[in-house]
């Protein structure tokens, strides 16, 4: 599925300083019944965000109007748990284009890259600085430059570089997906398949 190109993103951020945020929190299984990729943002963090009667939980950060922006900043080991890409869709559909953490679970990181959400892994120290900066001023802006592979806290100018594999980077910069690539080498795949018995 095509997504928007990603180059430079400057935005305030929503802080979620909790560790091991798992995919069952990001999108509970009972919301996985759709057959189309639509409307998942409404149920992002459903059980942390809403009471069982559907009223918003005041204390949850997404319900707090002082926080906004296209960047979600989470605690260590973000996205552990299931392979449901719905978790990445929910993050994207809600309006986030980037998730920052000091550590990501593998499948979630891969899913994000496949749907146009940039996972930015920073050091534990830098993550703390981001949380501190947002706490001091919820309007604090972060600048994420994918070409340069840097993340900067604009208010303080503190910056760190992050890793991304070169192929995925090109895909994100251009808004391409893997299937475009694979369909282009279909001949090679067919030859390989012929030599690979079931």
């Amino acid at each position, binding site marked *: 599925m095509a997504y928007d190109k990603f180059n430079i993103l400057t935005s305030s951020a929503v802080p979620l300083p*909790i560790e091991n945020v798992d995919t069952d929190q990001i999108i509970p299984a009972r919301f996985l*019944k759709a057959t189309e990729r639509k409307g998942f943002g409404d149920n992002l963090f459903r059980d942390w965000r809403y009471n069982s009667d559907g009223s918003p939980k005041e204390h949850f950060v997404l319900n707090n109007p002082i926080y906004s922006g296209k960047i979600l900043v989470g605690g260590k080991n973000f996205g*552990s748990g*299931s392979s449901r890409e719905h978790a990445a869709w929910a993050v994207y559909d809600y309006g986030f284009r980037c998730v920052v953490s000091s550590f990501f679970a593998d499948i979630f990181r891969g899913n994000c890259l496949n749907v146009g959400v940039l996972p930015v892994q920073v050091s534990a120290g830098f993550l703390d600085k981001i949380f501190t900066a947002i706490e001091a001023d919820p309007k604090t802006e972060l600048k994420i430059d994918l070409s340069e592979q840097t993340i900067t806290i604009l208010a303080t100018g503190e910056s760190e570089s992050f890793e991304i594999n070169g192929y995925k980077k090109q895909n994100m910069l251009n808004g391409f997906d893997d299937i475009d690539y694979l369909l282009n080498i279909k001949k090679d795949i067919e030859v390989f398949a012929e030599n*690979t018995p079931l």
Partner: protein
Amino acid sequence: MSKTLFDKVWDSHVVKHIENGPDVLFIDRHLVHEVTSPVAFLGLKNRGIKVLYPERTFATADHNTPTRNQHLPVQDPLSANQLKALEENAAAHSIPYWGLGHEKNGIVHVIGPENGITAPGATIVCGDSHTSTHGAFGAIAFGIGTSEVEMVLSTQCIMQPKPKKMRININGSLSKAVTPKDVALFIISKLTTSGATGYFVEYAGDVFKNMSMEGRMTVCNLSIEMGARGGMIAPDEKTFEYIKGREYTPKGADWDNAMAYWKTLYSDSDAVFDKELTFEASEIEPMITYGTNPGMGMGIKNDIPLAEAVEGGVATYKKSLEYMAFHEGDAMIGKPIDFVFLGSCTNGRIEDFRAFASIIKGRKKAENVTAWLVPGSHRVEEAIKEEGILDILHEAGFELREPGCSACLAMNDDKIPAGKYAVSTSNRNFEGRQGPGARTLLASPLVAAAAAVTGKVTDPRELMEEAFA
């Protein structure tokens, strides 16, 4: 050059290596279920393409299905719609579909091995993270997201960088009442839920060598819970014995050729792993979890650790105990429970039902306990009946349900109510995993059985004196 088991299988499936990028990995077999596939099929439709190799693709209904009255139409309209979508997609692309009521229906990771879809040395993927189960046969098997499901449907390949390699060795023999589930929960408690992130794990040593195929599946299944992409065990005579003669395993000359290849599937003696860990079998006790991730487990007789003794954030730890309504320093033994769930692709195989039955035999279900016993497949259900286990269950006051994922992820009606405690043989104790507000204690089928008949957390060893005398 010397290679690990993982290298041998991975390298032989690389169609193309992209410089400074991922490998294009050929996938031998692709398992599909109703929840993570509809958007992928929609993608194919939008691109105007067909499934490239339907004969390498298999579909079942399991995540979102009722475990009662499967002969009746599915009540929940959204679930029914998803099942219908899979049935139609399978038909449109000529994929075998084993829907509700089909004799081969069951949880995707249970029916793969049962039907010989799972093979040593194969690459196997599915849009479910516990695909790692199939690694028990010496396959590279892992869970993928829906974009990747679409990739495999359309090109039979995915694009992934090669993970690092870890080996976990456990030697010696396991103590009484220590099952493969306990081995896995023990490892996860040592490594934490992110300790193997970025790695593919090979399990080696006496403990895994001596383990049944069912047990190996349980261990490999839980690899994902320590963050690993997957886990695998080198195939041996037990493996070959298990798969021989199953529907999709090779026959005749093909079998001989395959065997010649399979026998090369082990880590060379001088192969190098990026990380290697070793534990002693005697360290492992029957385990139970007390928190909200599978790494928060301990020997059943221990007390819940104090916040200061755990690694990682104290706030996160406290939040987790608060959710469970447990306190630091509490004993787990004797805690009252409300539900027992025996099932899932972790512990929903025949061996698990045998273990459960061995404890409840001649006893009665505790009155305060609601028990959901859900076989992993129709084949398992059949075996339960044939072996007389159903009678033992009935005599003890239990009922058997129909196969499916059920309360493992609680997408269907099998939801543990808010605030209730469930001893579960499944794989995740995340907040709300088994229903909004549900509190899950992960454990083996033996611990689940002991809880089911006593109504509280009980050391199964106390109930198994005779059996082991």
